[in-house]
């Protein structure tokens, strides 16, 4: 690995200053599970690594039924799924947090890092999008908010400008009769990259028989995680049925633009989008019904 400098700022402003001083030659590190591999493999090169773990805001994790969930960008996955209140309120997010890497990786990797890494296959991104997550960004020109679905701009690229950093991901309060789910397809049973991943969230009416709204997001079927808005919208106001779910699955397939590579073919991936959309919607519905 090439030489790097390492800095441990204690505040956001200190971190922003450090990042701004080096432009694209600086990178924030939370778990480091992606960045160190990229640096070692020569796929990324930086001069300065800025540690996110000493900055209080980046380590915040709070949930309240009033304000929803705030997950600091450096909070490792295991802390999220170890929190019973969060696990109960956001099972769709837990689906993803508990399958990123193995237990060792989950001891370090953060959802913020997963989002910033902006891999098309990033497992936590579809559920964050499906749950209406928002990225809170700090930078030399102040802070801003970006919807999760707008955060990734290309493979390994995101909206962060030089000198900007992700502070936290905020996820709204789950409304009554809502449920979410994330599933990915991999050839092994863990420790793998999604051939396809699908995150869905649904809101049902009081009877639990009709969709009020739904959001669907897909991984590994485009250069960035896909927000399949039309697929989710197609369910709004419709009854929960095989036919409506099938229709949404087909719309999800339409939103996918996969390529063929060593992990899967276009045909296989489109097919899996359909299968996983159906499966995740069924799980989300079940969870929304309190199952």
């Amino acid at each position, binding site marked *: 690995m090439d*030489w790097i400098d390492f800095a441990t700022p204690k505040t956001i402003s200190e971190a922003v200053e450090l990042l701004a001083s080096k432009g694209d030659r600086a990178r924030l590190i939370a778990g480091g599970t992606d960045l160190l591999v990229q640096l070692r493999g020569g796929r990324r090169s930086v001069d300065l690594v800025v540690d996110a773990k000493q900055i209080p805001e980046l380590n915040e994790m709070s949930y309240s039924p009033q304000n929803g969930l705030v997950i600091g960008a450096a909070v490792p996955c295991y802390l999220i799924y170890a929190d019973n209140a969060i696990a109960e309120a956001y099972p769709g997010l837990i689906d993803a947090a508990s399958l990123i890497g193995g237990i060792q990786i989950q001891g370090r990797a953060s959802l913020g890092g997963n989002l910033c890494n902006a891999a098309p296959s990033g497992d936590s991104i579809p559920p964050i999008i499906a749950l209406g997550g928002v990225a809170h960004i700090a930078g030399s020109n102040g802070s801003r908010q970006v919807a999760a679905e707008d955060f990734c701009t290309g493979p390994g690229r995101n909206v962060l400008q030089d000198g900007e950093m992700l502070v936290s991901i905020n996820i709204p309060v789950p409304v009554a009769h809502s449920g979410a789910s994330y599933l990915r397809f991999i*050839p*092994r*049973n863990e*420790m793998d990259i999604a*051939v396809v991943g699908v995150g869905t969230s649904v809101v049902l009416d009081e009877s639990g028989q009709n969709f009020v709204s739904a959001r669907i997001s897909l991984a590994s079927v485009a250069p960035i995680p896909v927000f399949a808005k039309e697929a989710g919208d197609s369910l709004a106001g419709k009854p929960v049925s095989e036919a409506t779910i099938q229709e949404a699955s087909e719309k999800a397939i339409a939103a996918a633009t996969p390529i063929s590579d*060593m*992990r899967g*073919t276009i045909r*296989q991936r489109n097919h899996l989008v359909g299968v996983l959309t159906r499966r995740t919607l069924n799980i989300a519905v079940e969870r929304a019904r309190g199952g």
Partner: protein
Amino acid sequence: MVANIVLSEVEYTHIGKRPIRPDGVDKVIGRAQYGPDITLKGLLHGKVLRSPYAHARIKSIDTSQAEDYPGVKAVITAQDLPFASLSKEELGAGYQALKFASDHILAGGKVLFKGHPVAAVAAANPHVAEEAAKLIKVEYEELPPVMSVLEAMADGATLLHDDLYTSSLGETSQTASNVAAHARYEKGDVVQGFDEAAVVVEREFQTASVHQGYIEPHNGTALWSADGQLDVWCSTQGAFTVRSSLANVLRHPVSKIKVTPMEMGGGFGGKISIYLEPLAALLSKKSGQPVKLVMNRVEVFEASGPAAGSLIKVKMGATKDGKLTACQAELALDAGAYPGSPAMSAAMCAFACYDYPNGLLDAYDVVVNKPKTQAYRAPGSPQAAYAVESVVDELCEKLGIDPVEFRLRNASKEGTRRIEGPVYRRIGLVECLEAARSHNHYQTPVDVQPSGKLRGRGVASGFWFNRGFVSSCNLTLNPDGTVSVVMGSVDLCGTRASIAQQTAEALGIAYEDIKPSIADTDSIGYTFITGGSRTTFATGLATINASQDIKQRMIERAAAIWEAKVEDVEYVDAVLQHKSDSELRMTFKELAGRTLTTGGSITAQCNIDPPGEGNSFAVHIVDVEVDQETGKVDILRYTAIQDCGKAVHPSYVEGQMQGGAAQGIGWALNEEYFFNGQGQMTNSSFLDYRMPISLDLPMIDTVIVEVANPGHPYGVRGVGETPIVPPLAAIANAVYQATGVRMQSLPITPGKVLDALWSQNGS
């Protein structure tokens, strides 16, 4: 729950028991010294510059910037290998073999696979070495890569080597070719045999390149002293093989090379060849300091030997009542960049489980632009068994005969003549098949899954020769009555225990009183690699023989002490006693305590190349579940049955069977080298080269069938390799039963299963 069953014929005091291995404590506390753990005063670290291309001519190499880089102590290229300065005339008949060996270590004129070493650097630390390696400028002229045996064998194919000719048992082709060798074996008349068949099945199968996947990367550390003495430390299956390979490519006398084998983090056949050792040696020679090189995982995948990919055609015919009439196969195995695929052993193994009147085998060793193939657990046999056992399954289906019953009707047994000529001695295939038939797993129907997922069961058998080869050991009787056993066999997975048990059995003393250790090449007689399922058999025999010698010397010593005749003293259950005078009696330990004052130490040694290795057979049963929506195959239940002769340490025998099965499961389902259009491997990590993880496997039940090998006093057969042979076909057969599609290409990935299901449904 059925777990591990041992079907034992004979019981012994130590053999067949499950003591704690002698090297166990060091390995569970992290003290054991593996190859990469070594450190020496003034140690430098090396880095290899490798070819980014699968096939290219090297036009020039400029190392000047790397040499000038601060911290760099030495830079080498192929010009530093002795081959560069030797003429064809000087080398004579050995020219081509040395050219291949030398070029494999550091590319001369051409690079023949992505990852082929081109240069190497030694520096104060690995990061500096890596930075400097990037400063070496290499100009390449790209050539089209040849990636499959079909391409390589086609007329007008691009040639990897201008000077490679097809050798066919001494006959050599007139024109250069990518086919390095062709062998043919036959018996009877296959044409007539197929005429007599009621059912004939003919199919073609392909398997991808797969890697042994040992967790410890290749490593080598060397110190070349000013007097020409070369000391090497490395992880290898055979220190003497490393020594002779180094002597060959470095043109350095064997007597000036000492190889110390370190603990070994897995080999499976892949740690026999040298890679880094000669580079470390040359860098040390140039820098005057010790140099260590360790591959990273990408290098292990891209530049150490995978197992051969294969293209195999099989045709088999049987009568209505299920008797085989003819067996024919054509096997092409890719050797990678240099000749040496296990095509011939694949051919010899192909129909080894069957007794058939007519047979014809053609085997081809073919070079392609992949890393040079190395041995991987029963080299060639899994690929061949995948093809043959799939065809057998189809024959059974067509004939309506139970697959175990069919195999029993045609099973090889004592007296069956193999196609290459020799006749089997006592073997245990029939016993394995019978154990399979009566096993709870086979007797229990595959339960149907209510969720609608498809389930099926598959069976397959497998064979490996097992071998003897040369082993050496030195035994020393210590004054406290323990016995040190020094051997040349590297311990891959518990052979210190299995050797100690045999020595204890032979001497009649406690297992704990045997102290096994492994010596460097200066300290013990030549010993062949740990591999070929030979160590417990051959090195075990060496220690048994040496133990007899120890006993005899103890008898002589007791006779001297008692002033008795040697022939009047006997050794019974570790007690020395006079045959007629019951007063004259001494325990093993008592005599040991008196050795230093009655003439000195008692030692014995043995160097053997034993005949009598026992062939090994296995039968595996697997239940799978296939998700027809995703194409994913899950293993529900797995049972491995094998004739192990006498299992010396049943726990480690079971471990071999379970580990081999797990590797076979990986080979069957997910493992493969992906190459892009330029012949570059694209999945060279443990993330994308998907070996089974703990969640992918169930407990693997075993049945050890003990059909004693008459060639060993305790009936030991080798066990390590056969377990990887049956899983590929067993799983393919199970997938067929579940889905109705025959998977004729490995691995059986979810994508392939989906494609097959879609074409079955016509959608």
